[in-house]
């Protein structure tokens, strides 16, 4: 289950300085991971429209990646860009905390 999602014109847009590279680690299609993906999609569309890139990694298929990215908890969202790397664990249901974790200023 490797899904790629890019918001709006993101696919054709050239990588800009403020592009958001996000990775979501899941283990199979559990309710928690599905909820996490849905929540993430919603938040990104709302706050980072057009400048984000989501990669979903299923550890059941690529277990060795758990070691490389230091993943313990499932689901885990990793913000690779912009630096520094941030990790957010849980199903991302608490939007406010996700925004704090990603360091995104919510749009008023």
């Amino acid at each position, binding site marked *: 289950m490797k899904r790629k999602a890019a918001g709006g014109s993101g696919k054709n847009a050239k990588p800009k300085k403020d592009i958001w590279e996000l990775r979501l*680690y899941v*283990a199979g299609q559990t309710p*928690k991971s599905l*909820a*996490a993906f849905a*929540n993430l999609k919603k938040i990104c569309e709302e706050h980072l429209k057009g400048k984000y890139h989501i990669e979903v990694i299923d*550890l*059941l298929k690529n*277990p*060795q990646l*758990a*070691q490389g990215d*230091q*993943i*313990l*908890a*499932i*689901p*885990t*969202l990793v913000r690779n860009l912009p630096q*520094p*790397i*941030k*990790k*957010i*664990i*849980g*199903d*991302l*249901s*608490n939007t406010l*905390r*996700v925004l*704090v*974790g990603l360091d995104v200023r919510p749009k008023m």
Partner: protein
Amino acid sequence: MTMAKEKTRLLRGGLQKVRTGIEGLDEITNGGLPKGRPTLVCGGAGSGKTLFGVEFLVRGATQYNEPGVFLSFEESAEELTKNVASLGFDLNRLTASKRLLVDYVHIERSEIEETGEYDLEGLFIRLGNAIDSIGAKRVVLDTIESLFAGLPNPSVLRAELRRLFGWLKKKGMTAIITGERGDNPLTRHGLEEYVSDCVILLDHRVVNQISTRRLRVVKYRGSIHGTNEFPFLIDERGLAVMPITSLGLKHTVTSQRISTGIPRLDSMLGGKGYFCGSSILVSGTAGTGKTSVAAHFVDAACRRGERSVFFAFEESPSQVIRNMRSIGIDLQQWMGKGLLHFHAERPTVYGLEAHLASMEKSINTFKPKVVIVDPVTNFSSVANEADVKAMLIRLLDQLKSNQTTTLFTTLTASGGSLELTEVGMSSIADTWLLLRDIEIGGERNRGLYILKSRGMAHSNQIREFLLTNKGVDLIDVYVGPSGVLTGSARISQESQERDIESIHQQEIERRKLNVETKRKALEAQIASLNAQFQAEEQELKKLTEQEKMRQNGVSKLREKIAGMRKEDENSGRRNR
């Protein structure tokens, strides 16, 4: 008999165990850790938890063909490899040959934001992947409690840990989980709640500025185990637990005897010396010559071509050699010939267990027939009496089982009872020589006697112990009406006695002379009497002869007269 067999069968069948390969631990636990179950190893900082885990894996990989996974939550693989390299463990080699896998789980609290429900499936996948990639049988989690600091929700963590240990069990992993020692519960976060099959406690305590590591099996479900606290060591061979009670009174003895090196002492011990393989205690107050007795024994052993180890805990080897040279014993030559090995250390360098280990190492490498420990009482500065005794018992058991004769000296505090050794070691000694001061006439002299000597006839006499430039000499003390005399008092007493003796001798001579003259006078008298008697006898003889002649003459005359008277025959016959 059958019951005993049944019992052993039950004991064996009850629980399968996995040998850890850690020296001594498998003895305490009767075969190792429970197979396919997690074991909790807890202890304070620096108590050796990580090393315990690493050694478990390294031994498993190298000795029992069981690959292992080390999941580290504290140190990176590089750090760990460097840290254990000093103990002779080459993790890189094991990793390269796929017998070991070290995974460093790094969590940074500041990087993590919790945004809803989660589980630790990632850790499971990670561990599962590691286990499968090398076919691991052993797992170490060191220390999983770091997760409590890294992850925000303890209740989730607890549930997940419970699941993890269940999962490990299901996978048949023999696991070690390390935990930080807490104040009241065994571990800070109560891990013992989840791991209940076997709990081992490591302790690192400092008594009198000397640190000692100790290990205790707190709990071992379904198995008999040693419940004592066992001292353990970390040295260049890794971890070594020392079960003091592991050896028993099983050693066989010989009736072979070996010389003490002091001829007179040999004769006091039934003429042949100590038993081979026995333990000899030499006790005495300061300066009574304990080391000299020991040196004689070593010298005699080396002379026979036997190897000896001299454990000096008070003097340096060169000091002992110099001092012994002053009484005519050259120990240097034996060192040169490789027959004598000195092992000198201050007792305070390290704890008792470390001493015991280093002594055992010397003994195992040198394989001596004679061992000297001079003095054991110095250890009381390191540990308490009971510990010292336990250590000695262990040392002696080992030495006795190798038929090694051991002589150890103890210093008795002056003023106290001489027969009370400081460490209470008299019971473990087979032969006990007591050296003591005898204070008479303003001087101090040394005395020696044999307090006990198991299994041989021995002298009950006190001997004066002289240190001459030709070694130790034992001489009879003067025992007279004025008590026991030694030293110059003995010598003056002896000369006094000699004077008296010579006077007596003169008196006897005089008497002899008297008698002789008397005898001569009497003999002269006898001779004169004899002469007188002989003269008288002579006279008597003469007289008888004369009488005979006279009678002859008378009869002849009578015949003549009868012939002349012509008497008839009858009358002549009648007259006769």
